[in-house]
């Protein structure tokens, strides 16, 4: 199969102005992915499926990933002459940076006709609160139907154009999206006879809350 960089070129030639970047994967498998902007996502997905060389007719896996805002500290080394002696000296500069917060939907595409793959594409939402919509790829691959519903249920990504976007695993009327990283689970650790580790901590917190103390 053609390398992703080349594929990106072809997509850009077909859809000028589309927002497509290659996201390298540092793991040894080297499953790099394409991050695709929301506007052209549906058209690009259709291209990926119908292009005779790729013919990615099989969407295997759809999943969400939550990326909340995080503070990353980046260390850069700069060489500067020492003001007193004038000899070059290495300084470490630490810069704090806030990562953008967004939700991501990852699609693993394969081709059954040509038996190659995977091509991994990622769609990203604007943020985690109000701009959580991405276009649904269910009209392209029917396989996304339930999996996108699951991402909606557990992560809170809304899929525009999904024919039946309802909660799938939790009950209707459930608030919150449990797979988000800042989800707070209901406190039902009333009784833990053999608590240890995490459960012990949660049981202690429950006890503190029951007694009116701050956990």
């Amino acid at each position, binding site marked *: 199969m053609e390398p992703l960089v080349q594929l990106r070129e072809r997509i850009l030639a077909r859809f000028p102005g589309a927002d497509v970047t290659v996201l390298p994967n*540092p*793991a040894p*498998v080297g499953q790099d992915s394409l991050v695709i902007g929301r506007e052209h996502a549906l058209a690009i997905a259709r291209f990926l499926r119908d292009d005779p060389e790729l013919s990615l007719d099989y969407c*295997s896996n759809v999943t969400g990933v939550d990326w909340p805002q995080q503070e990353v500290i980046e260390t850069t080394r700069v060489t500067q002459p020492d003001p007193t002696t004038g000899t070059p000296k290495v300084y470490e500069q630490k810069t704090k940076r806030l990562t953008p917060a967004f939700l991501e939907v990852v699609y693993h595409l394969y081709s059954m006709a040509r038996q190659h793959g995977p091509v991994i594409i990622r769609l990203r939402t604007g943020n985690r609160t109000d701009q959580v919509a991405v276009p649904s790829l269910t*009209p392209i691959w029917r396989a996304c*139907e339930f999996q996108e519903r699951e991402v909606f249920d557990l992560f809170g990504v809304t899929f525009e154009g999904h*024919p039946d976007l309802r909660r799938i695993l939790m*009950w209707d009327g459930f608030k919150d999206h449990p797979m988000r990283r800042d989800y707070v689970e209901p406190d039902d650790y009333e009784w833990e006879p053999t608590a240890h580790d995490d459960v012990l901590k949660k049981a202690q917190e429950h006890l503190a809350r029951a007694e009116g103390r701050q956990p």
Partner: protein
Amino acid sequence: MNLESGISPAADRSAPALPAALPPFNPAANAQVREVHDPFHGDLLEVSMGPHHPSTHGVFRMMVTLDGEAIVKLKPVFGYLHRNHEKLGENTTYLASMPYTDRLDYLNSMTNNWAYALAVEKLAGQPVPERAEYLRVILAELTRLLNHTCLAGFLLQDTGASGTPLMYAFREREKILDLFESISGSRMMCNFQRFGGCRVDATPDWLAATQRFVDGYNEFLDEYEALITGNEILMARTQGVGVLGPELAVNAGITGPMLRACGVNYDLRKVDGYGVYPRFDFRVPLGDHGDTYDRYMIRVLEMRESLGILQQALRDLPAGPIMDPKAKIRGLKPKPGEAYGRIEGPKGEIGFYLISDGSANPYRYRVRPPSFVNLTVLEDMCLGQTVADAVIILGSVDIVLGEVDR
């Protein structure tokens, strides 16, 4: 029913010409659902099958709308066994998730283990010694036998052949479970694979017992087929019921025996060639009609192929270590990155998608459950059929709720 082997001769068969326009999406929406009360035909009837229903293989629920006896709409309802597998996986270490994978598809713990171990090995770049690869193949094929045998029993149970076929199936299942128990210490929850190998080695006694079992299994299959396969009632109930076309099957991401029953040649053991599968000589059975009977037959034929693989693997099993000596199991902290590992489970493609942020717990832990995705086309297969057929069609999809809801 015909058999085709290998990738090349069937490559053109597995390429269903995709229509340039979108495939007809969700035919249920277009189906003629009568809304108004019609004095001649009566009202539509909405039936909630499940979550407690003897035919649904667990806590699965279908909202079925009936016109007389024919199904005009069917909406599956999930989540009654949603055990938060993925959340738990993100809160525990890589190793501690291994026993949880046993409980995904609780009939096939060995293949779940393997898929997870494969994903972690891809993530961490971990090689696996040869003997362990052979052991994995042996155990995975035993698991396939177990799953397909149970399925054949349950499917017959669903058609109303209450008791006898299932008794036969479970008799054989106990024999496989004995093998599993003696190698891993547990009947169902084997927790056997590790990143970079297997947990315990097979003893010569165990191998001899497995050989004996494999030698005798064809006999059981012959017996079972004599009892079932040519049975007129089974044919009448299943042939032409729940037909699934190859285009829709590919588009809907169907995998495993269900896909191959539609005639699409896609078996990850051939396509990905993971483990040592390329060394074995086996064929991929393909169906012609995509109906319930084909789905049953494919499984029977796959069992026969599995027996061939088992014979070869037992014959060629090399000596050597079962664990890569450099492998890190406890306290594994893969470098940041992501990996998707998939294998051909008995129910279809089971995959694990892992994102590591360099810590001891995966940042994202995702299971790609085959039977959950295979249920996508349940409605399409059931439309126009009767309620009793819906039960068999669901049975032939072969779901396990632990995996569907996770």
